[in-house]
């Protein structure tokens, strides 16, 4: 059983942070909130999403009886339910519903999610979780450098870089964090000193990333005030930020483009 009420803007912000990477995925519902981890179809980026139950105005969850008895017979019983959701569709519905509070109710038996926004009720058929990709493993990564930057500063640079080329360099040179894009004609560089940032680990390294992915991510983080960038040399990029006024955490992992030969 899952029943919840949530502010439509909060829900939209959360779903947008997921659709930046995947269109559909397996959402895990437990007593303490929602979780998702999914990789994009090209295996280049991953999103991890966690939302606490108290981000909701009302959040009630209990494992269905028949499921409970089955799992208890087995090993450790895990009080959670997994549902397959087409997030793009859900986002479209929230767009129609406007700013109302959203009520959610799961019918696990019929594999449907009821949504109600004011006088509008919409029933979404769930996706068969077995038809969706398996949840990826948690990567084991160590990042030598961490940068905390205002989201708007980052997004502005990405928007400018989109006009120039299809990739972007993120790096740290001493106490400066920089973003560089170079195309056939133009070149762009943003350099921010330690005091212009919220946090910076000094170092000397950089990595190259596909701008298509970073652009999509930059849309998914638009409601966060700050983002944390974890960087290495020719290494994945881990971007972390909060959603739902700090009651949710999102992270994006992006594999680098590597120059060889």
């Amino acid at each position: 059983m899952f029943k919840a009420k949530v502010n439509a803007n909060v829900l939209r912000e959360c779903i947008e942070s997921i659709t930046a990477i995947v269109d559909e995925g397996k959402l895990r519902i437990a007593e303490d909130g929602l979780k998702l981890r999914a990789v994009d179809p090209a295996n280049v980026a991953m999103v991890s999403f966690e939302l606490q139950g108290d981000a909701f105005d009302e959040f009630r969850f209990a494992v269905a009886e028949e499921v409970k008895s089955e799992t208890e017979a087995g090993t450790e019983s895990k009080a959670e339910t997994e549902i397959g959701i087409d997030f793009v569709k859900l986002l479209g519905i929230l767009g129609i519903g406007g700013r109302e509070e959203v009520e959610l109710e799961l019918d696990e038996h019929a594999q449907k999610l009821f949504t109600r926004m004011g006088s509008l009720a919409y029933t979404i058929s769930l996706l068969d979780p077995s038809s969706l990709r398996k949840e990826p493993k948690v990567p084991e990564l160590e990042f030598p450098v961490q940068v905390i930057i205002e989201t708007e500063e980052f997004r502005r640079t990405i928007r400018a870089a989109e006009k120039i080329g299809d990739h972007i360099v993120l790096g740290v040179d001493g106490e400066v964090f920089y973003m560089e894009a170079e195309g056939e004609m133009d070149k762009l560089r943003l350099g921010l000193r330690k005091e212009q940032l919220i946090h910076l680990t000094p170092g000397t390294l950089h990595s190259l990333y596909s701008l298509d992915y970073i652009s999509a991510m930059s849309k998914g983080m638009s409601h966060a005030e700050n983002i944390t960038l974890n960087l290495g040399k020719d290494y994945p990029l881990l971007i972390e930020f909060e959603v739902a006024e700090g009651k949710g955490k999102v992270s994006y992992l992006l594999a680098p483009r590597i120059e060889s030969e």
Partner: protein
Amino acid sequence: MGVNIGAILEPKETSLEALSGKTVAVDAYNTLYQFLSIIRQPDGTPLKDSSGRTTSHLSGLIYRTTNLMECGIKQIFVFDGKPSELKAKVIEGRSERRKEARRKWEEAKVLLPEEAFKYARASARIDMTIVEEAKRLLTYLGIPCVQAASEGEAQAAYMVRRGDAELVSSQDYDSLLFGAPTMIRNLSAARRKATPEVIELKELEEKHGITREELVDIAILVGTDFNPGIKGIGVKSALKLIKRHRSIEKVIAEAKIEKIEGIENYEIIRNIFLQPDVNESYEINWETPDEEKVKEFLCEEHNFSEERVSKALERILKSKINVSQRRIEQWL
């Protein structure tokens, strides 16, 4: 052209970035045909040099191919060999249609300029000069060319099965019938005009519960480059028939199809797809582009803009650094 089975396929969209580091066996005739039919002036006239020779194919090769190289995608161009006798008939029909299109294009240029482009496209044709020029440019660019024994797509599919390439690139679906495990469409389309999409044979087989042999039978019922198919049978009804009866023989016997006109050579055609003639001794080597030769050929012989060609070459040479998009599995 090609077999019309698109309606039962579920292509998956992908991006050039995601294909970085992969090797693609390109159906050369199909790609050249795309260039010749699409790269045209607004009134439908193909690009031409000062002596009036068509250069649309060369323009496509240098600029669009550069895009792919820049993204770290390796290409092998596979050229058709001798067409089978059955195909000859289809080709005959095609050249009739092309002549008709050409006549209509000439008319339309005067009467209906907005229609001209459509007819111009349909009049595109590949001749030996076009093929020879394409091979010359590809060689100067350092891209390997492979000569097929017969069908280019059969050869490309064979090369993927052998592990020399990972995908067949073509707008037609025939390579699936020839057994290509993975194929991609829209690879040479102008960026942002069409999204590249991947189709996997295994997924297709699993989704419909059919084998490749049965897929070939479906194609024969619908019509291929080697036979017109049965009139009135589309791919969805062909799929139903084959799923119920499992082979053309049984469809004919059990579904009581009286007129087998259009599929009478089905055994031969099945064999063309399942046991195609392929060239087993080919070499694949990627070389550094010969800048001077490319410029001489394109700029001096065919009046290309020196500036644009230089820029394209610069991009290719830079791509030699081989920037490849990594996948996150590497860190999981």
